[in-house]
């Protein structure tokens, strides 16, 4: 199954050197800003900043191109959908209507609508480089330790580590089961009728789920025998200590957060209105 997925890319860069905790906190700050603000000025600044960070990280565009292409495609569809469902959303938000050209009734194109949709798109562009970077520069081993460090219980943090550990195994099982069921004549393509497709899917899913449930027993025995859950706290082999650069980075991001909030909210509206 040549389906690509994002995974850790091992490289020497200032971004890689930051601890997982720092990256996790910064990623959360970044996501919060991008979720809340619709202020074009901030979005543009954030976008440019995230491009800058992406360049320092030494991650090549080629390595994540498949995800970017998917996202661009998704954004296109989403933009069309927004326009189809609500062609005057921008007018509603900004309160003015500068008609660009008429195409009969509600589908008249306004500058406000274009501006609004540009903002929606920009919002994604702001968060995407940061999200991708977070995924490809954080060693999965360190991720659980980081979650624990920011206050998530270590039991739940470890559940996340287990999920990351077993995704490739489950994917391999899924492929094997699916192939052997296809050999018995199951057709997963669109050729079949819908009800039949559901039945067919069940004959692949059921063995996958039952064999995964068996795994739970084996793994929990193994963990119990090695003393998991014994203490209130747990240390992490892959945890890394904070460096000066981590502290500086976090302070920088908190400042960005404060500035963004101030700029966004000081006029009582999430939207920047140039009209």
């Amino acid at each position, binding site marked *: 199954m040549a389906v690509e997925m994002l995974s850790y890319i091992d490289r020497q860069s200032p971004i890689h050197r930051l601890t997982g905790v720092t990256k996790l906190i910064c990623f959360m700050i970044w996501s919060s800003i991008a979720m809340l603000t619709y202020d074009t000025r901030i979005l543009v600044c954030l976008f440019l900043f995230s491009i800058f960070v992406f360049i320092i990280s030494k991650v090549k565009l080629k390595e994540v191109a498949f995800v970017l292409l998917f996202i661009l495609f998704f954004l296109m569809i989403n933009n069309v959908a927004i326009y189809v469902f609500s062609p005057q959303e921008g007018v509603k938000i900004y309160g003015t209507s500068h008609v660009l050209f008429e195409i009969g009734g509600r589908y008249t194109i306004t500058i406000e609508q274009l501006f609004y949709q540009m903002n929606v798109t920009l919002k994604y562009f702001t968060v995407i480089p940061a999200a991708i970077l977070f995924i490809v520069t954080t060693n999965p081993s360190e991720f659980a330790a980081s979650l624990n460090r920011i206050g998530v219980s270590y039991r739940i943090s470890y559940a996340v580590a287990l999920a990351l550990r077993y995704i490739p195994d489950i994917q391999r099982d899924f492929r094997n089961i699916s192939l052997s069921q*296809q050999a018995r004549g199951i057709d997963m393509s669109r050729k079949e009728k819908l009800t039949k497709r559901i039945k067919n899917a069940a004959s692949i899913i059921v063995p996958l789920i039952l064999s995964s449930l068996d795994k739970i027993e084996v793994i929990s025995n193994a963990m*119990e025998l090695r003393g*998991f859950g014994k*203490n209130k*706290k747990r*240390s992490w082999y892959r945890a890394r200590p904070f460096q000066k650069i981590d502290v500086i980075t976090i302070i920088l991001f908190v400042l960005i957060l404060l500035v963004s909030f101030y700029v966004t909210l000081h006029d009582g509206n999430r939207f920047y209105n140039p009209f």
Partner: protein
Amino acid sequence: MKKPVIQFENYSFQYRSQAKPTLNDINLTIYEGEKVLIVGPSGSGKSTLGHCINGLVPFSYKGEVSGRLKISGEDVRELDIFSLSKKVGTVLQDPDGQFIGLTVAEDIAFALENDYTPQTQMFNKVAEVSKMVEMENFLDSSLHHLSGGQKQRVSLAGVMVDDVEILLFDEPLANLDPATGKYAIELIERIQQETKKTVVIIEHRLEDVLHCPVDRIIVVDDGRIISDMTPDELLASPILEECSIREPLYVKAAKYAGCAITSDMYPARIDSFQVDDCKDKLADWFIKVNGPQPKVKTETILELNNIDFGYTSGKRTICGVSFSIEKGEMVSIVGKNGAGKSTLSKLICGFEKPSSGRIYYRGLDITEDTIKDRASRIGIVMQNPNQMISKQMIYDEVALGLILRGVPEAEIKDRVFKTLKICGLYPFRNWPISALSFGQKKRVTIASILVLEPEVIILDEPTAGQDFRHYTEIMEFLVELNRQGVTIIMITHDMHLMLEYTPRAIVIAGGTKLADDTAVNVLADSSIINEANLKETSLFELALRAGISEPKEFVDRFIAYDREVRQKWQ
């Protein structure tokens, strides 16, 4: 006076869900620094005995305990599973289940992390222990890049970080190829020598464990301890045969020849075994018994021509493999873990497409056929039956392939019943699959392939994890199918299976075909053995030492004779 570390006193245990006790009145003492092997057929209670020692019974598997169990002097009832895990380190059978960490170092450090050990201390300990199991150069490797043997070494290191007193191995050889298994046994021996820990091994591959000395062997059957003696004494007794545990082959051969085995012949290992007194008997027996019937040549049914394949471009998993298989043959494809055996079977079934080369079926080019088209000619049975079964009732499961092919209902019923009869499942036809044993489930999966009437069946490790009795049952069933004309290809790393059941073996190493010969010839060639991680059979050595001039023929005759004997206990 040695210090006892494991003491069972009148100990019985009954699982909550079961009607009868699994362990009955066990009395057993194991002393500090001993190396003890526990053997027994599946369902005998030997694994439960292991669970009692490491605390899974009764802390994780609930049930009723009576009698007493003391681990290093302390009553288990006063302990909990965590303090027990500081005394007993367990290496489980399934390395993929036991390997919890994302990388080698993390997995080794797992127990230390749970103890809230400071990081620097962890680094030191992991470095120290990984060196002991020779994994120090792989600390940052992800487990997906390790072989089965390496994973097991990591598991061992993972329990050794705790400075446990007792090392418990639950079927350590189950998933390893022969050479890796041999290495694992040597590693356990070395670590015991260095650390003087008490070692308990639960395993049914007796001959392989005896590659290195053990102090005592405990035989468990039907929840009771049948015997507790030294290996030499045990092999001189008839106990193993009575419990249907496979004896070392050289001992079996000597017994067939009519030699009386006594403990002062040191039968525990082939190199210590005194054969002088049996030489004549072995020679006589060799002349008396018949070899296997030679197979008549038939037509070619499957042909691979110069197959190349790689999962990622630039890296080839299979390079230029060619061979042909005749109708009615029974062939094994052998080689070490990761040599490309499974990939080859996927190519034959059309799960993967070769990057170059052709595949012919009865002279017809089928390289471009779909999976479904190919499946009516060539069926594949996967190693784990739980990954194939999707229905709840046996009948529905077996009928699935026919229903999907739109076969009329009356015919489906006929064919399913006929197949169920062949597979010995007819009496169970209305049972839910969940009520079947592992071996029976395996048969259901074979039946569900067989019902499509393929002429060739490929089986991936058909007997993995089965004890001697079930092994014989499954294999004799396959032989019967073969007699009815089905061509059978087996992918295996069980040397004895190959020797015993498949006259011909194709050896794969590093994605190329290393040899294609009779099974006996393959095992007589030391360069093939080394390159493909196989292991010589002790029968050769016995034949050589007994002065028999044709050792290969001796092996053949032994196998033919042994199978005949075993067919009687079907």
